[in-house]
């Protein structure tokens, strides 16, 4: 990583346990400002849990999370809400408020956190919807638009307060390849135009290599490898190779050997 990349998020040795199971097991990560960082890993590797720690929805069992010069691990709600104003978050299922129109959805953070008049809020909402390519959709209800459009509305809502950092949880999940690549374009665009730091959680290789400045691969709650897309592509690590090639047989076996299977069955 070049020296010009200033870290905006620094995660120091966080551990999260649910009961006896350590979902995150000592993660150290640096996320540079103004870049797109993609967090990858197989299902259940803890990547969503990791993301939820970054936005303060979970508190780590131990460790520190420094966001823009503040340790958010165990921060009080009021202070946390101050930090959260620097965030935008795009949820996997969009999480639009179903009882409100598209325009009202985008206006929620503006109404709650600013003293702007209704007129100005309406203008800002239009600008944000324009940014995601949804001009003129203000009065639609969320159930009247497609899944891809919902994602874009959710993105407009996430950037309503001009955040420094936007988190994306599986932005391409449940979308067709064309719409998914459109969302990728948007992420790239926003990151460049507005100089936003983006943190993207995904397991889609294509999308990851298309947008990433830095890729972090998680495996079983640990960081397996950090690097540029190039470095990841040429990785010597066999798990990383299996992951990016998308093969079912490899270091992580799909089938167990017959002895292991028998042993597993007889275990009590």
């Amino acid at each position: 990583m070049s020296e010009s990349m200033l870290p905006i998020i620094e995660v120091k040795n966080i551990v999260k346990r649910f009961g006896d199971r350590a979902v995150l097991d000592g993660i150290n990560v640096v996320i540079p400002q103004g870049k797109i960082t993609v967090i990858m890993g197989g299902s259940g590797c803890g990547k969503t849990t990791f993301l939820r720690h970054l936005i303060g929805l979970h508190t780590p069992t131990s460790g520190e999370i420094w966001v823009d010069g503040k340790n958010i691990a165990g921060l009080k709600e009021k202070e946390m809400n101050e930090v959260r104003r620097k965030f935008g978050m795009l949820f996997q299922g969009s999480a639009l408020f179903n009882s409100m129109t598209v325009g009202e959805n985008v206006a929620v953070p503006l109404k709650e956190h600013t003293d702007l008049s209704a007129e100005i809020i309406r203008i800002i909402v239009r600008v944000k919807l324009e940014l995601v390519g949804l001009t003129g959709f203000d009065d639609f209800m969320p159930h009247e638009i497609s899944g891809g459009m919902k994602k874009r509305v959710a993105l407009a809502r996430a950037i309503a307060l001009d955040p420094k950092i936007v988190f994306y949880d599986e932005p391409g999940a449940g979308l067709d390849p064309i719409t998914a690549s459109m969302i990728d374009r948007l992420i790239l665009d926003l990151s460049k135009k507005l100089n936003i730091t983006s943190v993207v959680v995904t397991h889609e290789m294509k999308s990851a290599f298309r947008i990433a400045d830095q890729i972090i691969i998680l495996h079983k709650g640990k960081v397996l490898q950090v690097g540029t897309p190039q470095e990841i592509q040429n990785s010597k690590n066999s798990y990383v190779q299996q992951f990016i090639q998308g093969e079912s047989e490899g270091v992580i076996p799909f089938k167990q050997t017959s002895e292991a299977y028998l042993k597993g069955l007889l275990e009590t």
Partner: protein
Amino acid sequence: MKTFAGKTGQAILFVLAGVARLSTLGATVGRYVAESFIRPRVIPRETFFHQMVMIGIESTAIISLVGASVGTVLALQAAYSLKTFGAIMYTGSLVSVAMTRELGPLIASIVICGRIGARMAAEIGTMMVQEEVDALTTMGINPIRYLVLPRCLALALMLPCLTVIADMMGMLGGFLIGITGLGINPYVYIAKSVDAMVLKDIYTGLLKSFIFSILIALVSCHQGLSVSGGADAVGKATTQAVVISIVLIIVVDCLATAVIYYALPT
């Protein structure tokens, strides 16, 4: 015996834990209500007015119907017993006192519990499932302030109003059946009704309905907020919201009546 004691202990702990969680939620809402006197913006106005319309105006018809029916039934049943003492003209007194003290608040609360409590639990529960509540949190908006507070306030304002309507309609139902079916002189009916009531009957009834409204709102929102999982959990939360609210309403009604009419000096 041992398992029985264990199970009883568990049940008691379960109930206590529930009461503790409800009190925590209630305390948080209370803090926001106090804060709203200094900063009125704390209350999300749109949701508040929307809820008031939904709870108040849209429930008027059903509350009127149920209130009138209860009043009618009460008059008919009371007349049956009073006739044996030749005291049929006291039907009006009985209906008016019973409606304002007890049945008005109770009937209004139970109807609203089914109509609004279930709706609150299902709505907030679904929002939990679809990450909308998480979205609020990440926007730095406290879900209790944004979702629970306006619902509590709207219900606390509207349920006493609906109780007045239920009281009135109940008395009207009793009056109509009294002067037609039972053949009581209208003037006598009204005079007896008014004579029997004192102001305390009305305001204790309204006070009860206010307490019930807080119970319904807190229980329903709490059930909604504790949903995790999917459609199954939402269904369970909705049922629980209604059942727990109704049980609590009746238990609290019992206690309140005992305190108001027997423990306090008259």
